[in-house]
């Protein structure tokens, strides 16, 4: 069975100008393509979350450039790109009392569907509940190909 969980990279960001641009430069120089991206920030620091086409190389390149990096498993759920698409997923998530640490979304190239990235406490349980509810879970490979 294909790996249902998607690998995400998180990078620590101090709130100072130019750091995001430096990360983008490092990835560009290593020919790594960004599939999805979200920044979470507080008054003092930020965390950049990234899904890329080659996680291992991206981690290596960012570490070499001096960044603090960690990996986490997230779940990518495909939803229809129309009003109400997100609401349907969230109804299932909250109905099953799944604890969401954070989430973000991106739209697929075709424009037909959107993908919601969830960071769950219990990703395996979340995957089976969402699949039972009829949602398509995108594999790591599928996300990288998008």
């Amino acid at each position, binding site marked *: 069975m294909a790996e249902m969980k998607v690998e995400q990279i*998180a990078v620590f960001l101090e709130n100072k100008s130019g*750091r995001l641009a430096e990360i983008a430069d490092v990835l560009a120089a290593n020919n790594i393509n960004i599939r999805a991206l979200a920044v979470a920030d507080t008054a*003092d*620091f930020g965390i950049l979350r990234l899904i890329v086409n080659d996680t291992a190389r991206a981690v290596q390149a960012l570490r070499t450039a*001096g960044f603090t990096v960690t990996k986490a498993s997230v779940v990518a759920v495909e939803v229809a790109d129309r009003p109400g698409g997100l609401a349907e997923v969230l109804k299932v998530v909250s109905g099953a009392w799944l604890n969401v640490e954070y989430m973000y979304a991106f739209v697929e190239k075709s424009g037909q569907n959107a993908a919601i990235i969830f960071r769950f406490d219990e990703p395996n349980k979340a995957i089976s509940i969402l699949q039972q509810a009829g949602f398509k879970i995108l594999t790591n490979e599928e996300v990288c190909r998008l």
Partner: protein
Amino acid sequence: MIWNEQYETMPREDLEKVQLRRLQDLVARVYARVAPYRAKMDAAGVRPGDIKTLADIKKLPFTTKEDLRANYPFGMFTVPLEQVVRVHASSGTTGKPTVVGYTRRDIDTWAELMARALACGGVQRDDMVHNAYGYGLFTGGLGAHYGAEKLGATVIPISGGNSRRQILIMQDFGSTVLLATPSYALNLADTMADMGVDVASLKLRVGIFGAEPWSENMREEVEKKLGLKAIDIYGLSEVMGPGVSMECIEAQHGMHIFEDHFYPEIIDPESGEPLPMGEAGELVFTTLTKEAFPVLRYRTKDITRLWAEPCVCGRNFVRMEKVTGRTDDMLIIRGVNVFPSQIEHVLMGIKGVEPHYQIVVNREGALDTMEVQVEVSEQVFSDEIKTLEALSRRIQAEIKDLIGSTCKIKLVEPKSIQRSEGKAKRVIDNRKI
């Protein structure tokens, strides 16, 4: 007013006789009763009988904060604990505080010296003394309290914090004298402005400010904002607490050391050699009369100079200049002593936290703030904000537990704190003092 005419105006030659007699008695006492002093004196080859003149004091070994730490908590006490009626403590360079003890007579002596100090600063019996020094293990609150009572003034033991309530009490009780750290005094002035309280409606006339370094500029500012005369007081718990030396309201220039109880020396901090009168160096104190916790040649690590010139106030005691620096890396933040090694101790105790840190001290408005910057290693980094915030809060809480003061924690990227050759630069002090 001079509280104790007999001693405070005693001719120098008589004072020196009193000092010598007290010094000889002290040296005999600590040699007989305190093993660490005996061991150090034996190692230096000096016996109590060798102290024949005041100049012989330089034969005695120095006492340092490290000696006090090595004998934590009560190992340097000269009397059995049943004769100790109170202890105080100040922060040590690592986890353990420095503990000091007082007999009944020490408490009386301290009250006498603090009464002298307050009188020297212009406080009188009919004053309403608003004591905003912290009450507790810190010597400031209780030390000043007993002195003000001894003087016969009315004491409001309000302690620190809750500035708005402090101002209401000043208005309602008619406080005339404010005892506080100078930064807290400025904070009270700002709070008054916020509350729309006109300082002219208050009865404040004298402020006695100490426990942290402050400048002549700050004196002008606090005098203007609070409409009072600002007087400088000096003390440290290892020597007694507040009331070791005090500026007079007449000159407001240099602090008179109560030399019948404390023998001051200025030494070269490198060589340990005594320096001539007037030269700047490290201040060293020998307590001539303390019973429970006397110190022999205690190195304060404060840099200052002494003046022997006569003073308009009539006191014959030498004066010390405002402390201009430290020989170590101790910081004083809102009256609390902070050593970078304490911060390091906390960080080293948290798994995965790198011992790379920097302390940034700022003065925001009237208050000193301390920010500790900590590098985030991959061991503690997480993709979740809450994990990093919990780490920040934990570091903050552990520092507060150790030093009693709240600081801001800033997580920074690895290698972003400047690595210097040799000794790391741990402290950036942006205060203009």
